[in-house]
Structures are given as C-alpha cells and as structure tokens.
C-alpha cells in the first residue's frame, strides 16, 4: 500500500517518519537498504554504479537532478530515475525531501530560483508517481490527500487565496457554486444535475471535474505547502545561531546541479549559449506592445505606459536583459557605473515615447520625470544622482499578464508572444534571431544595423513598412 507521505511528505505520516529519524546524526552514512531497493527495481537502468544513491543526501540531489535533466536534457532517460517512483523508498524519500527544503530554506530563502525549482520538482514528482499507479489506486490516494489538505467537505474558494495569488491555479479553472468549490460527484449532481440538458450529468462530471481537477488541486496545494515550509525554515534560520554544515553543503550541491544546465543546455529559454550580454538596443526585436508604446499613446493611460511599462522595459532590455534568468536583484549602477548609458540611451528613448503621446506627457505632467527616476531606483528626485540610488527600487518589466490588465490597448500579441510571459523575454528571444539576420544582411551588403538611439523612431517606421518581409524571415 502506498503511503500518503510518498505524495505529500508534509502530511502527518511524513512528519512521523522525520520524528523517528530524530537527528542529523549519521545522515550522510551509507544506507545499504536504499541501494538494494534501487538496484532491485526491474525497470531501473543503471549505467554506472555511481549513479545509485546510497544515502539521504545523494537521494535528495537525485530528486533535483531528475527534474533539471527532464526539463533541459534532450537525451533524458527516465529509466535511470525509475527508483524515484518506487514507493518502497518512501521512508528515505521523505527524509531527503525535508533535507532539501531545509538546505534551500537556510541558504537561499523562499524567493530564490532554488526554491522555485524545488517546488516545481515536487509537483512534477507527485504527478509522475500518480501516473505509475493504477487508476483505482491513484484515485484513492488523491481523495485521501485532498481530504487531509482541505479539512472539510465544503470549501469556499477564498481558502485558495495563496494558490490564486501565486497563480498556481486559476479561478476560472474551478467549478464554483455559491462560493463553494465543487469537487465531489454527489454534490455536483445535486447542484447542477437539473440544469444539464441533452447530456449525461455523470459524464459531464467526469469531464469537468473528475480525476483531473482533483489531482490539479492536490498537487498545487502540496506545492504551496512545500513553499510555505521553506519559508518557515528560512525565517527560523535567521534567528538560529548556526545552521548545520551538512545543510549548507547540500545547498551548495543543489546550486551546482542547477548551474549545470546553464553551461550545458542553456537554461530556461531553450536557446543555447552563455549568459545574455547587455548591448545596444535593437528596436527590431521589440515586442508589439513596446512598439505600440513607442509610437505614442493617444488615449488614456499615458502615465502608466511611460512610467510603469516603458521605463522598466527599456532600462532592463538595455542594461540587464537576463534579470529573470539570473534572479539576482541589481541596481542600475551595477550595470552602468557612470550612468552614461542610462543618460544617453535609456532616458532619451523613454522621453521620446513620452513626447509622442497625445498630448505630450511632460507638457501637462512634468512631474512624471521624477517618477521615471524613481522607477530606475533613484528616489523621487529630478536628476539621477548616485547618492540617491537605492531610495526606491529598480522596477522589473511588467509581465504580459499585468499589461493586459493595466494597458489592454497595448497588447496586440503576435506568434512569438504566445511563447513568453514577459516582454523582456520576447526581446531576448528575438534579439538572437535579429542578430543572425543582421549578420546575414551584412554578409550580402554593407548594411548598418540600426542600433543608434536616434534612429529608433525611423527604424520602427521602416519595420512596420517591411513587416511582411520580417515575418517571412521569422517563419
């Protein structure tokens, strides 16, 4: 029988396992039983003896490695990680889960890439494990875990506040009636049965809720609990005297596993190559919303478009394009120590967009210049001065989601937009294609690429004119 803790290590059963272990003593000792379980698994493929985890710490790293490889390695072979879905390892798996959360919590904290990877890996692992069970077994497990997670038969949707806030689930995915989440079949039939015409209510239940929605909610709730647990650890660690060196060591090793795909397969965007270097802006790679804003905002929303949208986008695209990949908070001066690029390239482009608004933004609202400086991290002052840097934070570019809400008129998505969630990712993706295009161009004729800020307005017009050509190259 599969234990609930195999899916949810934070369940009471999982906590019992940790309690039984007691302390960190002997945590890195070899566990012959674990090795035996891994090697006896019939679907397990072992290429090298070193691949077999022989203690808690190695098992912990295997969990992360599985996720990273599955995501980034084209030659990923799932059979090399078969043991991860074998419930006979539950006891060891639970401990390794706690070790990971604690290591990441102590060293990196809840807002780190390590935490994000850990939480996502846990979610994927649960799904992988459920997939290996029979339909009956999996259904039973999901029902049991949900009963434990939800505490009550009837749950108001507001209970999922955290999951909604972190967008782990979408409100539109839930089936709601009178504020209550409908998950169970009897309840569904009781509330909606009489309204359903020309269709069988039972099969409608199976399609709309059935196993899929229950599984989704269970998985996302466990992911959220994992995140919350890491946060708790982090907060406790801040008042603790000295974290256990084993945890710090494990944290470093996790970071190494995470760094590997950056070197080998290129992390995140799927493209290959090293880190994204900052360089002169290339308007040909701007997403449709930025191009539209550059043409000038003619109706309402001028302030938001220039101050909240364009300022972060232009500054990050020019100075720190891989902010989301690096996940390290920086200041403008970290990237532009003399603020020369900011003064000569970034601000002029933002001002130009402001000038093209109808009416020109600064004509009636000159104070918005101060707000632009504030969004660059230089406080509420009329000039950029190093001594003011840090009084406010350097705003990161708005996500597509936010743009749709704040500035719906700017959002006119094209094909590339479907693959990204932030205009900056669009720019990073396109700039590679555009650069290659430039290279091809300069091979055939001596064509100067239009990266001079003063040319930007013109090149946008040119690009609009030639948009068919550009599309054909893109396709």
């Amino acid at each position, binding site marked *: 029988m599969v234990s609930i803790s195999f899916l949810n290590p934070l369940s009471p059963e999982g906590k019992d396992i940790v309690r039984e272990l007691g302390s960190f003593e002997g945590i890195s000792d070899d566990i012959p039983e674990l090795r035996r379980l891994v090697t006896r698994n019939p679907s397990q493929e072992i290429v090298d003896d070193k691949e077999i985890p022989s203690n808690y710490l190695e098992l912990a790293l295997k969990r992360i490695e599985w996720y990273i490889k599955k995501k980034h390695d084209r030659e990923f072979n799932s059979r090399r990680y078969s043991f991860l879905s074998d419930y006979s390892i539950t006891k060891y798996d639970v401990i390794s889960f706690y070790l990971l959360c604690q290591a990441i919590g102590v060293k990196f904290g809840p807002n780190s890439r390590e935490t994000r990877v850990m939480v996502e890996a846990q979610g994927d692992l649960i799904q992988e494990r459920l997939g290996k069970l029979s*339909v009956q077994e999996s259904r039973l497990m999901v029902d049991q875990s949900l009963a434990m997670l939800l505490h009550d038969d009837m749950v*108001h*949707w*507001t209970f999922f*506040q955290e999951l*909604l*806030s*972190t*967008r782990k689930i*979408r*409100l*539109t*995915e*839930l*089936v*709601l*009636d*009178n*504020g*209550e989440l*409908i998950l169970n079949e009897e309840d569904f039939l009781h*509330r*909606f049965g009489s*309204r*359903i*015409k*020309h*269709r069988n209510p039972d*099969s*409608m239940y*199976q*399609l*709309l809720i*059935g196993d899929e929605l229950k599984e989704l909610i269970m998985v996302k709730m466990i992911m959220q609990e994992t995140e919350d647990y890491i946060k708790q650890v982090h907060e406790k660690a801040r008042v603790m005297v000295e974290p256990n060196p084993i945890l710090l060591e494990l944290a470093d090793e996790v970071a190494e596993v995470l760094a590997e795909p950056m070197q080998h397969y290129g992390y995140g965007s799927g493209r290959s190559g090293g880190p994204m270097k900052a360089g002169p802006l290339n308007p040909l790679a701007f997403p449709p919303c930025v191009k539209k804003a550059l043409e000038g905002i003619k109706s309402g929303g001028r302030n*938001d478009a220039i101050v909240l949208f364009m300022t972060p986008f232009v500054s990050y695209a020019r100075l720190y394009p891989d902010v989301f990949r690096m996940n390290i908070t920086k200041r403008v001066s970290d990237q532009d120590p003399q603020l020369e690029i900011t003064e000569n390239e970034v601000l002029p482009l933002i001002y130009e967009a402001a000038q093209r608004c109808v009416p020109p933004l600064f004509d009636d609202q000159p104070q918005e210049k101060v707000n632009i400086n504030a969004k660059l991290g230089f406080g509420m002052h009329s000039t950029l001065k190093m001594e003011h840097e840090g009084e406010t934070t350097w705003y990161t570019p708005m996500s597509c*989601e936010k743009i*749709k*809400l*704040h500035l*719906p008129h700017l*959002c*006119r998505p094209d094909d590339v937009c479907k693959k990204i969630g932030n205009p900056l990712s669009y720019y990073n993706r396109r700039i590679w294609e555009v650069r290659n295009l430039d290279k091809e161009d300069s091979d055939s004729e001596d064509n100067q690429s239009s990266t001079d800020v003063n040319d930007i307005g013109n090149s946008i017009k040119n690009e609009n004119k030639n948009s068919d050509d550009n599309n054909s190259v893109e396709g």
Partner: protein
Amino acid sequence: MDLKPATPNERRQYYREEWDVNDIPEFIRKTLTQREFGFDHMGRGPNDRYRVFQNTDYLRKFMRYRTPFAAYSSVAFYHKPRRRDGWIKAELVFDVDAKDIPIRSCGCENVCEICLNQAKDIVHGLIDTIRGDLGLSDIHVVYSGRGYHIRVLDDKVMGMDSDVRSQIVKYLVGSDVPRSEYSSHGMKYNLEHFTVPFGYPQVFTDRVKQALLNLNLDTEIDEVSKDIKKAVIKHRELLSEDQWGLFRKEIGPVRYARLVKGIASLNLTLVDAKVSIDLKRILRLPSSLHSGVSMKSTLIKNLETFDPFQDAVPKFVYERKD
C-alpha cells in the same frame, strides 16, 4: 439632458442647500476615521490628498466651505490613513464606466441614456456572478456620474492582494475562453462553453451573448472581419433563444473560435481593471457632486428602478435658465 459642467456657484448651492452628510452611505460613515480622503478643488485631478476626518461633522463643514469640484475616499482602511500607512484591508471594487464599454450600441461621444443602460445591464450580470458563483455578500452599487461602481465589503475578500483580485476580474468579465477539449480515460471530448450551464463557462457565455447582441459593423474586434460581423448580425436572433449550437454552425466553427477569442480580450475592458487591483485607490465619494457632468454620485437602493436622469440630477440643473 445636457451634461454640462457645474459652475462654482452651482457647486456652492449644491453643498450648502441640497447635500446632507447623512447621504454618504453608512458603510463609509462608520469607517470614516480609517479612510483617506482626497479632493479636487480646481478640476485638475485630486491633488489634495491624505485628508482624514475624525467625525462626520468635520467632513460636513469641509464640504460646505470648500465646495470641492470632486470628492473621493479610499477603498482601503488604514491604521494611519493620514500617511496611507498600516493598510488593513480594502473594498473589492468594479468600475463600469459607460464611456469605456468595449462594445457600445449607441456610438455617442460621451455618455447617454443608451450606454448608461447598457452599463446597468453589465452591472446586473457582474453582481449575479459575484453572488452566485463567488458567494460574496455586502455588495453596494453606486452611480458614479458616468457609470457604476460595485463595492464589495465582504470580509472574505477584503484582505486579498492584487493578484487574487486580478483573477476575480478575469472570472467576472469572462476574459479567458474556457477550454473546450476535455479527456477522460484516454478519450477526447469536445464541450463548447455554451453547453456547460454553470460555473465559469456559463459566465463566459453570458458575457459573450451580451457583447454579440450589442455588436455593430463598426465594432473593432481583433482578427474578426466585417464578414464575420455581418454573419453575427444576421444570425444573432438565435441567441435570444439560446440556440448556440445553431448560431455557431451558421458562423462556422473556425470563425466562431476567432470571434469568441476576440470578444474575450475585449471583455477585459468591461470594467476598469486598474481600479479593481489597486489596493489604495480613492473612489468618488457617494453623494458628492460630479461637477464635470453636473450629476450626483448616488448610492443605489434598487438597481432595477434606478434612473440616473431622475435620481441623480441635482436641483440646480432644473433651475438653470439657459
């Protein structure tokens, strides 16, 4: 009725002779000290902010003597409203502005009876969903002067952050096309939104219907051609009888998919989402004068019978000579 701005004399007359501090809804009066107030004295935006009133009498005096162009109060409750600090919670607000309805049947320049009525229909639909699907109560509707504010004071949602609020907006307005492909035990099934008579697909169907019934040939919808719009106008009678399957067939499944996708993205402007996700917004004070159009912002007791041109017109408008 001519919606022209109020003169400073008319403002003075309104606040001294007609307005009563007890016209401010109780839900604001009883939380007065926790709210920030803002005023626009010159008609150039509310730049007199961070005002706090210890009791209604101070507020009454302020309004009588300053007779502001416009008055606002925060949707947020603070421990220190004077510094906009110590945020406790905020009303959940939906702003339906008649001027900004994405598909308007009237085509007027500003607002008129037709689009105000359309705004009212939208408000009805939103409130049904707020109550029925989201199970929220303590809902108040205020006529803002150019449209309607729905203000939800249910404690279940007042502590929620902007991200949750943005999800609520999307649910209410129907800005995502519900999925139509489902699978069960390895088999694929198709369920169009209009075949599901509850939950979000039902909300979406209601909003799309509202849009299609008001659409005209000039309505701009992304990637929807004039031909599709013509077909909609020709066949939309089917929708009054909820013959969605037939309607979709007449439009053609591919064109239909494009049509609902276009409407879904327009739906995001049914309400001003910025207002809903802003946790520190100030909103026009009910009972105060909208000087731009000379109308009273009014708490509505019965939305069915409310008529802004009857119930929200200040006396001075009837006394105008020209």
